[in-house]
């Protein structure tokens, strides 16, 4: 299987010396097409910054990012955004409050040069389990779960191959989280998507992913398969600590 996404020696920093902060330190991983990869760690461990670096949302980075075996430059072109899309953590903040669902989706479709928008939008809404009645609603007329569905529909609009998921359910209630996680699983199977998922919740990552990287202080301290994680078999002391607190929390 070919590699959908490969990251080699990624470094991200903010600020200049002497105030320079290294948020991500030589992180490398590769994801095969159709796989689902998880990044876990505490707040400040740099897991979200890795996703932001991939989408080109951070100014200073070094290393190699390869999408479909093509090297990314300093600027992301339209072809990149057609391949890679991101779903953000907080659906209350990531949707424009004065744009209707229709406008959010049609803008994305127009940007990527799709015609026939009128038939595409109901199809997209249907994909994420919303009826066509939601098309002309504003975000404040939607619940948190419905908003996140709209955010996912927007990410799906350009028919991407890779979805970057930044804590897609941490702002939602558990029962709504279950709906969104099920939806994401279905979409991955239907559209043969590749996922990179960031979460602090090990159970969520375990449910969604095949392989997991544990991050601490900007570096990946351990890579493990989800099976290993389920059996609490971590090698690095930090991942052990993380697994233990998670297990105790769930007990």
């Amino acid at each position, binding site marked *: 299987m070919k590699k959908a996404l490969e990251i080699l020696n990624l470094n991200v920093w903010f600020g200049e010396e002497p105030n320079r902060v290294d948020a991500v330190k030589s992180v490398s991983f590769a994801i095969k097409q159709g796989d689902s990869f998880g990044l876990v760690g*505490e*707040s400040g461990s740099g897991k979200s910054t890795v996703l932001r670096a991939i989408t080109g949302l951070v100014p200073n980075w070094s290393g190699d990012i390869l999408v479909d075996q093509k090297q990314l430059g300093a600027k992301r072109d339209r072809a990149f955004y057609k391949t890679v899309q991101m779903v953000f953590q907080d659906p209350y903040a990531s949707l424009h409050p004065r744009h209707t669902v229709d406008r959010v989706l049609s803008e994305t479709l127009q940007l990527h040069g799709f015609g026939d928008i009128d038939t595409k939008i109901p199809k997209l809404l249907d994909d994420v389990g919303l009826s066509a009645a939601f098309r002309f609603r504003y975000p404040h007329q939607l619940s*948190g779960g419905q908003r996140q569905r709209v955010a996912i529909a927007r990410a799906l609009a350009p028919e991407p191959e890779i979805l970057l998921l930044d804590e897609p359910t941490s702002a939602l*209630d*558990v*029962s*709504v*989280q*279950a*709906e969104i*996680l*099920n939806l994401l*699983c279905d979409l991955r199977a239907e559209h043969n998507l590749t996922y990179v998922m960031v979460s*602090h*919740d*090990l*159970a*969520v990552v*375990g*449910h969604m992913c095949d392989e997991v990287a544990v991050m601490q202080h900007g570096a990946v301290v351990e890579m493990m398969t*989800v099976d290993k*994680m*389920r059996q609490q078999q971590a090698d690095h002391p930090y991942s052990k*600590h*993380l*697994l233990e*607190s*998670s*297990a*105790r*929390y*769930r*007990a």
Partner: protein
Amino acid sequence: MSNLVDVENLWVRFPTRTGLFDAVRGVSFSLGKERLGIVGESGSGKSMTGRALLRLIRKPGIVEADRMQILGHDVMSLPEKEMRKLRGRDISMVMQDPKYSLNPVMRVGEQIVETLSIHEKVDKKLARQKALEMLEAVVIRDPERVYDAYPHELSGGMGQRVMIAMMLIANPKILIADEPTSALDVSVQIQVLEIMDKLVRERGMGLIFISHDLRLVSNFCDRILIMYGGRIVEICESGKLDQATHPYTRGLLNSMPQLDHKNERLEVLNRDPAWRDQESVSGLL
């Protein structure tokens, strides 16, 4: 009267353009010297119940109850001045997010001392001493430094511990914790909860723990009220969570992904409109 708190038939209402909205609908419960959990999803009325108890519901919100007593005081009729004395000294509340609940332009130590000096006359030096001891009790390694720090200089976990210190320094008999750790990382969550749990137990306080996380609450409470649509739908002993019968409680339990084994699909909660109309279960002791 041995119960710390008694609430009978509590209603919280808010006027809206389309008429009165009932956030809490006829809830009854009491708190003994125990750890009581209130669990529900957003909008279930759990936080409003906690706030109503401290009389923190602002106008135009309407609070009605047949009886609402804290340590024998009638909360419904107590003058505001008396109520203010009650808050902090007898009953206090830890809020969800330290970022929004601490005064950003006041040193942490001064904020802790303020709680103390409002309720009793204390010598400045002694107050500082007490605040430092309290910071130590919540396992802050360097209390002297934290005392002089501003809230923005602290991490989320430290901020939350400072809040707990602040709430416990006047030795209240009841602590209400409203999602005290939802803003924190898993590994810090456990630490903060264990500190809170230890202090509450050592001091023989009553705890009302409000959270959306059923499993977490079952770890730290003796009795759990499960709320849905402003009512209590079920009451569980914490050890007997697996024997819960209400479909909502079961749904909450089953919709969570598990770390130790894989479910191909997560169970999705089908909300039955009938749940909203069921009689509220009484949690009175």
